[in-house]
């Protein structure tokens, strides 16, 4: 490892943010390199200076700000997020449901006692109608992972009723006793839509946007072909709960000719892993790692295509990413252990990628 490698690590070394082996390596280098020692000291002085210069004065201003905050909290009905509205809306629903039930019972009793000719079907319809009004706010939605794809800021705030309805659905009924508890839940991300209903209310996104979002997420990762990126993006579209019925344009427009049906994401990564392992054996990479090799003969064709273009290191690097993905997606503990084993051996062999692989390993072990 050359000098610039260690110099680049000094910032993280100062923050004790390197893996233990790397910390030890840098420490040993510092014992020998005065230039790096000087740079480390400079970084330390810089940090100290930041602490000295970053403090604020402006006591008059902050006293006014504190008073303003105190006035705000002293106002008894003020709520940052309309918890009171939640409370009243919830109360309204409860009152109306109760009233509807009383009306229903009264109606049924009236008809029974006075024998008005009303068929049981009419009564059950009335019953359902009376009960369905509050139930509308409990409408089931698909559990999309839109947030993962295009972030919170893209989703417009849902209509107030639905946001509150989501909270009613998710939380216990609002009472004065637990209002504070609910308010603590809304502090988490005030401007973020919450719950399934909020995700349903997120603005519709075209398939091109979703695909490009997924590509942004995965692009740059070694080992993913353009076709794989596209199929990953389209698989994510499907896994986010947008079915063909809901978004007929998804998967249809500009479909990749290579992929004719949706394959679960884990299987895609597993297939990629198997291809690379075959390649690894063929060109002498790290050697076969104990794993659940699917042994699919059809892999041989794909292996042959890739063999010409990749070196052992490239294959191992691609495999590192793929094993990480498989390890994160799989529920098979043996497969996850195999992922951890591969990445550990990779980390020991290729120390330059240590911090990234360290991050992968931490996530897999959690």
């Amino acid at each position: 490892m050359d000098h610039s490698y260690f110099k680049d690590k000094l910032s993280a070394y100062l923050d004790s943010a390197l893996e233990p082996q790397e910390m030890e390596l840098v420490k040993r280098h510092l014992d020998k390199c005065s230039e790096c020692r000087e740079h480390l000291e400079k970084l330390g002085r810089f940090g100290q200076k930041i602490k000295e210069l970053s403090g604020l004065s402006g006591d008059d201003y902050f006293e006014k700000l504190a008073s303003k905050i105190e006035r705000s909290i002293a106002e008894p009905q003020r709520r940052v997020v309309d918890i009171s509205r939640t409370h009243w809306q919830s109360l309204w629903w409860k009152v109306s449901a109760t009233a509807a039930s009383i009306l229903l019972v009264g109606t049924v009793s009236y008809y029974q006692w006075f024998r008005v000719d009303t068929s049981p079907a009419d009564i059950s319809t009335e019953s359902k109608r009376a009960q369905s009004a509050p139930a509308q706010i409990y409408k089931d939605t698909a559990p999309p992972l839109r947030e993962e794809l295009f972030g919170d800021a893209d989703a417009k705030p849902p209509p107030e009723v639905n946001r509150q309805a989501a909270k009613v659905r998710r939380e216990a009924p609002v009472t004065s006793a637990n209002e504070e508890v609910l308010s603590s839940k809304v502090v988490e991300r005030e401007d973020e839509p919450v719950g399934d209903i909020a995700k349903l209310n997120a603005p519709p996104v075209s398939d091109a946007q979703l695909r490009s979002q997924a590509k942004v997420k995965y692009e740059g990762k070694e080992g993913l072909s353009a076709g794989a990126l596209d199929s990953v993006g389209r698989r994510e579209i499907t896994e986010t709960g947008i079915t063909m019925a809901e978004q007929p344009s998804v998967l249809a427009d500009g479909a990749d000719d290579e992929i004719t049906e949706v394959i679960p994401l884990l299987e895609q990564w597993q297939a990629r892993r198997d291809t690379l392992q075959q390649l690894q054996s063929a060109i002498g990479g790290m050697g076969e790692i104990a794993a659940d090799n699917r042994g699919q003969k059809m892999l041989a064709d794909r292996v042959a295509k890739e063999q010409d273009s990749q070196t052992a290191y490239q294959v191992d690097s691609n495999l590192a990413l793929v094993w990480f993905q498989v390890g994160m997606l799989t529920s098979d503990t043996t497969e996850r252990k195999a992922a951890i084993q591969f990445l550990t051996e990779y980390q020991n062999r290729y120390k330059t990628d240590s911090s990234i692989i360290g991050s992968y390993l931490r996530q897999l072990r959690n």
Partner: protein
Amino acid sequence: MSPLSREEKQPSPVIKSEKWPNERKILEAAQNGNQEAFGVLVRSYQKKLFRFVYGILGNFDSAEDIVQEAFIKAWQAIKTFRPGHDFYPWLATIARNLTYNWIRREEKKESLDKLTEKGFNPESVELGPFENLLDKEGSKKLYQAIQALPLEYRTVFVLRQFEQMSYEQIASYLKIPPGTVDSRLYRARQLLMESLKDIL
């Protein structure tokens, strides 16, 4: 999520008095509805919180709004605060959540190309009313330099340097790999050290 690393626990800035000799007592009183006690917490932590929020946003009015909002939310949720824990990390989490959506929106508008397009020009940064909160020589230059950083660098720098968050905590908050935190922080420090070499 505590923003304080294991090595850098800061002494509490809480304004102590005979009535409330330590933060725990203040928090107990606040949780029992004592607004005066909560006012002590506001005065103890508002500067630190303002520094962090302004450091990221670079907008005085927005920073003031978020700081105010964070304290109000903290008051509303004070009964859920777990005794025995430090107040500031919890308060800072509320402020970070309020800042988060702003960061995501602004990241889409601004890019790292800002450096190549406009160069790194701290002298051109106007701090506005924030300048009135600085009384140390060199503070203005520091904050101008921080605000001149592209948002991606500035965010990780402020979270690390002002809030002492670990790389993993920063990565989790910004939803980026720890390696990216490392590289952005390294670059931010390089730029700032070069820019501030006269005062370092």
